[in-house]
């Protein structure tokens, strides 16, 4: 499923996207007001306290912190803007946004860090003195989003203006020994994870939930490590980043014919009864490779059994071409060839194989007219749906399966503990569940 | 400036709807849609045909045909109609007058009914949507 074509088939959603999100900001609160900073300036989010105090610095410089060996000044934004500051408990962790402004890296202390908000630049209004708490010259604009008014800070302006002044203040030469070991408690990690969660949803439509959170957690730490060692931004700031982050999420043989051996192993390992038509549902079938692989495997394993595969997708482009999907010879493992014929456009499955598959233009979020199924193959589909829809659909899958029917999720997806009606079936190198009898 | 009437047009074509004796062919237009009836009437009138009657269902068409016999030269007959459908009506008209000239008007997807009509004696058929050229061409060949 590609994002562009999804948009094409979903005008209701498209009208929202038409507003064109071309500006993303991290939002936070400060003295009860909402603020935003350009996500491109944000290096990371963390929680920390007990900064090393530096003498002879302006009152808003709370000290310096050691960010993995790099010494960065920590600025208290409330103090800087002369906003009423509460005296805080020394041991309490502060919310810090690490910014990169030109060559400078610094941290700002804010009250709470909220989320990533995507907006269209066109909707940003010029600052107006009435917003008052902060000098308008530090504000690049204001924008309304979902009923909240965000003041967008011009961090370049704020922090480069008195660069020289601060260069004197930020003691780059502070002896390392004086700096306490960075306290990056688990909470900061959680917060970073929260940002991954939000940015994955924004940029890739990927929704983190119990279904995939184990993978996301592992991937996030691997990702952080990799990006840091390559001196790259840790945060996901673009669709390309999100794509790269998710590149290891997908199940084996996504968007191509399945490896014949694993397809055969899977199907022969399923208890599909002795007779009668085998009914399979394959929502989110994309170009159809999964449905064809299943059709072939059913043919190999149960040559005498009738079977039907309902394959559907809401991507009109992909699903329309699925009935006549052609493969280049080198995309087709040898075992499939007896079930295929060569056509002008390449190798296609025979009419006989195709007659078992019904490709439908259908949105899984609408009513699903399938019933009495033995197998539902829905790999890496639910993760791209809203969390509520994920849960609703898993319940629906349960209802639509026969007792003893199977549910195949993506390799990195798994059912939460709430779904007690299923038990996991091990040993397939695929995430397979069976509806309890 | 010279106008057309200043020159006698020696090649003036006799309109298709006019017989050799100078009188118009008389047509019964059968269709349950006012739109189609009007459309056919306009097209035929433009070539000199005279639509002497219209009918909105098979029963009415059969009665009109019998009533006006032998003063109807051609019938255009819709296939799908209430009360009595076009094919049944065609059958009854042919029983009454084996020389009747009937052109069937069909929607797409009615090939079977069109075939049956031709076997029952319809002279020709026109598949909708109708246009002037198609209607006149088929009507004229039916009269030959």
């Amino acid at each position, binding site marked *: 499923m590609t994002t562009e074509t999804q948009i094409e088939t979903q005008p209701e959603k498209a009208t929202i996207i038409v507003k064109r999100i071309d500006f993303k900001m991290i939002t936070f609160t400060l003295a009860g007001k909402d603020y935003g900073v350009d996500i491109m300036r944000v290096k990371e989010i963390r929680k920390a306290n007990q900064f090393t105090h530096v003498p002879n610095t302006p009152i808003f410089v709370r000290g310096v912190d050691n960010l993995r060996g790099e010494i960065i000044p920590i600025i208290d934004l409330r103090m800087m803007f002369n906003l009423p500051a509460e005296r805080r408990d020394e041991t309490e962790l502060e919310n810090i946004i690490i910014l990169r402004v030109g060559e400078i890296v610094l941290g700002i202390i804010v009250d709470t860090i909220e989320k990533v908000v995507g907006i269209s630049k066109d909707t940003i209004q010029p600052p107006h003195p009435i917003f008052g708490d902060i000098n308008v010259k530090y504000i690049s604009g204001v924008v309304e989003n979902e009923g909240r008014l965000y003041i967008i800070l011009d961090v370049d302006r704020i922090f480069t203006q008195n660069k020289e002044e601060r260069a004197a203040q930020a003691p780059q030469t502070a002896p390392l020994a004086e700096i306490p070991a960075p306290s990056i408690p688990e909470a900061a990690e959680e917060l970073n994870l929260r940002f991954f969660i939000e940015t994955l949803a924004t940029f890739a439509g990927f929704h983190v939930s119990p279904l995939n959170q184990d993978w996301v957690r592992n991937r996030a730490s691997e990702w952080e490590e990799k990006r840091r060692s390559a001196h790259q931004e840790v945060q996901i700031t673009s669709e390309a980043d999100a794509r790269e982050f998710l590149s290891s999420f997908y199940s084996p043989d996504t968007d191509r014919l399945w490896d014949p051996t694993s397809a055969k192993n899977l199907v022969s390992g399923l208890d599909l009864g002795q007779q009668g038509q085998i009914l399979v549902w394959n929502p989110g079938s994309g170009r159809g490779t999964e449905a064809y692989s299943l059709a072939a495997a059913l043919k190999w394993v149960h040559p005498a059994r009738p079977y039907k595969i309902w394959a559907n997708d809401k991507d009109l482009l992909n699903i329309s071409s699925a009935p006549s999907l052609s493969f280049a010879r080198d995309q087709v493992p040898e075992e499939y060839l007896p079930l295929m014929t060569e056509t002008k456009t390449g190798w296609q499955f025979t009419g006989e194989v195709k007659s078992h598959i019904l490709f*439908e233009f259908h949105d899984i979020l609408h*009513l699903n*007219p399938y*019933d009495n199924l033995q197998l539902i193959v829905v790999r890496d589909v639910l993760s791209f749906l809203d969390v509520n829809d994920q849960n609703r659909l898993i319940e629906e899958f349960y209802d639509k399966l026969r007792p003893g029917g199977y549910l195949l999720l993506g390799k990195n997806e798994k059912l939460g503990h709430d779904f007690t009606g299923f038990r996991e079936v091990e040993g397939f190198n695929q995430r397979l569940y069976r509806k309890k009898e | 400036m010279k106008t057309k009437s200043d020159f006698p047009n020696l090649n003036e074509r006799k309109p298709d709807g006019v017989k050799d004796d100078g009188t118009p062919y008389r047509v019964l237009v059968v269709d349950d849609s006012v739109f189609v009836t009007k459309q056919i009437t306009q097209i035929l009138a433009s070539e000199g045909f005279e639509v002497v009657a219209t009918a909105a269902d098979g029963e009415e068409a059969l009665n009109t045909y019998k009533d006006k016999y032998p003063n109807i030269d051609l019938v255009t007959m819709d296939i799908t109609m209430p009360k009595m459908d076009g094919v049944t009506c065609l059958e009854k008209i042919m029983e009454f007058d084996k020389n009747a000239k009937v052109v069937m008007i069909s929607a*797409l997807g009615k090939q079977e009914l069109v075939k049956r009509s031709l076997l029952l004696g319809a002279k020709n058929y026109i598949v909708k949507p109708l246009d002037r050229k198609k209607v006149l061409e088929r009507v004229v060949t039916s009269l030959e």
Partner: protein
Amino acid sequence: MRVEYINPFVEAAYNILREVLSEEVKRGILYLKSSTNPVKGVAAIVGLAGEVEGRVLFDMTKSTALKIASKMNDEDLLDWDDLARATITELANLITAQAVTKLHDLGFRFDLTPPALITGENMEMYDDYKDETETLIVPMETSFGPVEINVAIRERNRN
């Protein structure tokens, strides 16, 4: 909805509208809907029965319907009268018939019911097929206004 059904309707709508309006029409982006459909003002409904069942609904505003009927009759129709109604009914017939003919050629067998025409303000369309399938919306843009073709069909025996 089965993908094989989609193109015949899109093509038929495009071909027929272009032919009867003698102008270029524009195809909008197809999409699926499962909610109740508001009807713009004039709706022609053609039923399908056979191996597949369902209905096709042609939806447009009364003003668009009058303009289209005027164009098809080659005269200015000012009132929503019998002729205007018959014309829009015929348009629905023409498009559905052409689509069904293409589907016949592909081996799907079913028949059409005569169109029913519904007009009114603030109407909503609700049909039972929704329990089983969503509808495909084929939006067409004509110079007389938009015409939306709303297709809900399904196989009679799904299992």
